[in-house]
């Protein structure tokens, strides 16, 4: 009995994604409780060994090129179906329950946080050139980003970073899976001292000004943009 096969069978029958630790627990509990003599062999399986096996399995399923893959999302392993079969799976199991899509400003801010974490609001605003209070509220409420500490500078501003829910939402194994991660992380950030001189007023633009920036989903008709978007559009366009 191969470890690889056991791991595959366990993941195949799991109701939820499993971390290497959970897999190790299954192996060690089975060793303790089962009469199966083979089970004892896997009592003390090492994490590295498990990871190697999981990677091999994922590779095998990718090579087999069937309709499913073994993937790791936020550190937990799971079988997923290829996205092109979504229409039929949707018929079978119903629509996935997912919050609405993120707006363009939210995605931009999130990208900055993802690549540059941990960072302060002022740093985000420096890159985006606009206040981020509205979108940060959305991102925090959705649990995609969170406070991760405080910067050791005057005022000890809060530092933000992404959560595991961020990885899950985008189907990422880890932050190193972000596209072009190296390049984007390398862009030099301005010296932190400069941040402290940023006008506080800039970061805390009043809501009525914010509404204009975030609302208006690229209207091409000026009349409509002036008369309607200001009054009707919510701060976050729901369609995005």
């Amino acid at each position: 009995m191969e470890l690889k096969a056991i791991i595959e069978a366990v993941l195949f029958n799991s109701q939820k994604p499993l971390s290497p630790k959970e897999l190790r627990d299954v192996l060690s509990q089975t060793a303790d409780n089962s009469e199966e003599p083979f089970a004892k062999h896997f009592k003390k399986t090492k994490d590295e060994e498990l990871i190697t096996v999981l990677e091999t399995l994922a590779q095998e399923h990718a090579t087999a090129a069937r309709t499913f893959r073994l993937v790791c999302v936020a550190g937990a392993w799971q079988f997923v179906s290829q996205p092109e079969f979504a229409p039929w799976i949707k018929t079978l199991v119903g629509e996935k329950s997912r919050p609405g899509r993120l707006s363009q400003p939210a995605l931009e801010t999130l990208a900055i946080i993802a690549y540059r974490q941990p960072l302060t609001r002022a740093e985000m605003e420096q890159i985006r050139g606009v206040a981020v209070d509205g979108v940060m509220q959305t991102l925090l409420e959705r649990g995609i980003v969170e406070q991760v500490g405080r910067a050791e500078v005057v005022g000890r501003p809060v530092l933000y970073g992404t959560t595991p829910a961020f990885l899950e939402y985008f189907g990422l194994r880890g932050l190193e899976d972000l596209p072009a991660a190296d390049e984007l992380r390398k862009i030099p950030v301005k010296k932190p001292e400069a941040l402290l001189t940023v006008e506080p007023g800039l970061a805390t633009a009043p809501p009525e000004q914010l509404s204009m920036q975030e609302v208006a989903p690229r209207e091409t008709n000026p009349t409509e943009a002036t008369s309607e978007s200001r009054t009707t559009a919510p701060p976050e366009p729901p369609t995005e």
Partner: protein
Amino acid sequence: MSEFKVQFEIFEGPLDLLLYLVKKEEVDIYEVNLTKLATEFINYVDLMRQLDLDIAGEFLVMAATLMYIKSRELLPKDQQAVVEGEEDGEDPRWELIRQLVEYKKFKDAAGQLQEMEATQENVYRRTAPKLSFEAPAQRMEVSIFDLVNAVNVILKRFVTTDSRDIFEEKWSVSEKIETIVNLIRERTGVKFSELFAAATSRTEVVVTFLAMLELIRLKQIVIAQPEAFAEIEISQAPPQPVAPPPEPPAEPAPVPELNLRMN
């Protein structure tokens, strides 16, 4: 101005607007004519004002920066003023371009995140069917509801009987146990209804039923339904092995691989 009207867009911020203006020029960010860019930007902000749009403070700050860059450009190099706090070699033009390049990269990254977001909506995780490893079924092939249902059918014959007859007890469970045992010893497959055929009161039905339950519990009899909705039949239980095997052979499982039952 008409040109603006056609192309009017609302931008998320001054950098977004600048990127748009650069893109319109169809040149690389590094080669853009900043003086021209500044002029267009300021025109744009003016237009927003004329249209009575709220203009975010950031746009005004950027407009001021661009005005400054523009004014500097107009002067010969040696006459350009050195602004307080501006260190040597820190060219405001370069700073702006650097900021634009950085912003564009994140904007592109946001675009990729958006694609991943859309893809994830279509990625379904396999949720395995719920499995349960139950102790192999007891020799009880009929559910309680079948039994209750059966009793119910019989009880219906007595619904009109005065319930006081319950207290005029004439039947004991032990008696009924004996009756049933004798009956099934004679032949197998005694129909459920036969047990109650001679019952004269609701009480007798109840007592007979209790006797039957008791015999099932003591593994003296087995009950089975030949097919769904067929009448329940009662037979003598097969002799108990001295040491009952831990897992009596379950019914021939259609999936012999695993004794798993789907819920």
